[in-house]
């Protein structure tokens, strides 16, 4: 049954002060509405109990992101688009960045806010486990003043929170102390676009001295509230990642969660998937750190040889070898990017020339090599084949146009065409190639170097996780 708009009162006072004053006058009667992605859905279905709404959309005090030395303070009125475009969130809080990009389609990301998502309190919301993993704190505001509380205590039951009748979520604070951690986010749903999760995970970990030094695990859609798995974390902390730990972690997950049967899934399926997600996280945490730990201890020549296929420049590989030990994935990527940017053009060129020409990869028949740490130039060819797999599958006409354009490029710039081909079709690559043929030499050199840098990042991540 659709609602009748004449039954509702709504105001837009325009400032935070005016909003909290209004809410203080009639506590509980005024319900805040930000981008409407939840409230208007209830309204359309005739299920919105509130009759008085106060707009908190686009209030400057609620729509800012402030970065201090110790934390990032995200205004509750920031949209998912705001979050996914923020550089610090992208770099230091990748779990939140991914969740922001998974939440709804573009139009809903433009209107849905982090504060709205928190107050809507759906146990299935993708961003909330990320806030738990990063140990977020919330600042709540009312005419009585502000108070700050750990986010993990905010949800008190299904769709119930600590918010008082006159209070608003003002800010979400994330401590900037997880920079060196391995981040793992995954969502299991019916499809990837716009599907509400059956189960989702956001987890962080650090591995040192062969054991799990620190770990944070949070799951969505497995309990009446977004859930942090403290008991599972406790079991994993200080342990070697082996089959005993993986088994006991899976049991701990099953004991901690309280999943239900609903339209999207069953409790039984959710229990199995939750166990798998935690298992996968711990396994990857172990393998990333293992690859790095082994590489950190190799003799320099072997270390240089092992990492060379990720980039193809010997100068780069030598600097990387000399920068060891690198603690984790984040440190590896920072070192790799810095080293790459500081190379001379002739050193870049060596990396460009290590690739097969797009569409002419001869590497697809090569067998995988092992172990990964001792990867060789063959590994580079194998990765090229993966990266260019869309090209290999494309039509003959596109392939031949690509071959022609490649030749033109080589005549013009005197080197092979470099593009980060992962996920791109032959037609897309052709388009990019044709556009770049119009570049001047200097612009094109830097564009090629940037593409090679992207290829390097993708390869380093694969290298860590083989």
């Amino acid at each position, binding site marked *: 049954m659709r*609602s009748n*708009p*004449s*039954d*509702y*009162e*709504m*105001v*837009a*006072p*325009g400032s935070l002060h005016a909003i909290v004053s*209004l809410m203080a006058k009639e506590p509980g009667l005024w319900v805040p*509405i930000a*981008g*409407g*992605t939840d409230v*208007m*859905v209830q*309204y*359309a*279905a005739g299920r919105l109990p509130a*009759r*008085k*709404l106060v*707009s908190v*959309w*686009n209030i400057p005090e609620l729509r800012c992101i402030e970065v201090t030395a110790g934390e990032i303070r995200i205004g509750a009125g920031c949209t998912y*688009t705001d979050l996914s475009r923020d550089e610090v969130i992208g770099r230091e809080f990748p779990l939140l960045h991914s969740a922001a990009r998974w939440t*709804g*389609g*573009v*139009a*809903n990301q*433009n*209107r849905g806010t982090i504060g709205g998502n928190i107050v809507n309190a759906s146990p299935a919301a993708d961003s909330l486990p990320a806030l738990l993993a990063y140990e977020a704190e919330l600042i709540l505001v009312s005419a009585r003043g502000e108070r700050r509380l750990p986010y993990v205590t905010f949800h008190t039951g299904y769709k119930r929170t600590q918010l008082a009748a006159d209070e608003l979520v003002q800010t979400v604070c994330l401590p900037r102390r997880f920079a060196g951690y391995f981040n793992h986010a995954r969502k299991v749903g019916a499809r990837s*676009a*716009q599907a509400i999760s059956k189960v989702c995970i956001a987890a962080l970990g650090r591995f040192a001295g062969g054991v799990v030094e620190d770990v944070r695990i949070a799951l969505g859609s497995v309990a009446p509230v977004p859930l942090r798995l403290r008991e599972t974390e406790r079991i994993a902390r200080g342990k070697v990642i082996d089959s005993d730990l993986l088994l006991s972690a899976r049991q701990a997950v099953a004991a901690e969660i309280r999943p239900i049967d609903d339209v999207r899934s069953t409790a039984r399926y959710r229990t199995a998937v939750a166990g798998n997600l935690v298992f996968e996280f711990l396994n990857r945490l172990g393998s990333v750190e293992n690859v790095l730990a082994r590489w950190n201890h190799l003799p320099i020549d072997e270390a240089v040889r092992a990492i060379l296929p990720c980039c193809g420049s010997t100068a780069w590989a030598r600097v990387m070898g000399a920068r060891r030990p690198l603690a984790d994935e984040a440190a590896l990527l920072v070192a790799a990017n810095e080293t790459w940017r500081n190379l001379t053009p002739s050193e870049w060129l060596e990396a460009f020339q290590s690739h097969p020409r797009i569409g002419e990869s001869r590497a697809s028949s090569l067998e995988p090599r092992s172990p990964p740490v001792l990867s060789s130039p063959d590994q580079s060819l194998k990765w090229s084949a993966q990266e260019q797999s869309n090209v290999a599958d494309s039509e003959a006409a596109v392939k031949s146009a690509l071959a022609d354009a490649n030749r033109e490029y080589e005549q013009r710039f005197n080197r092979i065409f470099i593009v980060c081909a992962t*996920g*791109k*079709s032959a*037609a*897309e690559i052709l*388009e990019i190639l044709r*556009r770049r043929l119009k570049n001047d030499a200097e612009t094109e050199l830097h564009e090629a170097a940037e593409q090679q840098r992207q290829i390097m990042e993708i390869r380093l991540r694969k290298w860590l996780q083989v």
Partner: protein
Amino acid sequence: MTSARERGAQVEISFVVNGEPRAVRAYPMERLLDVLRHQLQLTGAKEGCGEGECGSCSVLMDGILVNSCLVPVLQAEGSNLVTIEGLAAGETLHVLQEAFLECGGAQCGICTPGMILAAFYLSNGKPEPTVTEIREGLSGNLCRCTGYSQIVEAVAEAARRRSAA
């Protein structure tokens, strides 16, 4: 700035629609979609699901793509709105509209205004989107004729024409 009123009172709301200043009287919780269609006779935006899942009611509000079924009209006060009716310049179709026509990007037509506006919004940020970026940019727009391949092709074709121009 709008002050508290009696429940049920209509208010005057002003905005710019497709470049023209307009004013309407409406209940603040009326959906922008209904105001556009019923008061301004801009029937390009369609109601599909009515809950923000299908994108057929997409419009641009202050330059961002929104589902107009989820916007209470009070929040559109003072904003700059663009609907599908505002894309063509007189009789000259926008390059996206041309490309949709030529690539067969429209079948029954219900999703088309939303698809074109979502593509328009995408191309404002990314003039040369890849196929993956096009698919992501249109992921909030559903086509029940399932003509997605031609729609994606139309958006790519429009980008090619723009870069050639």
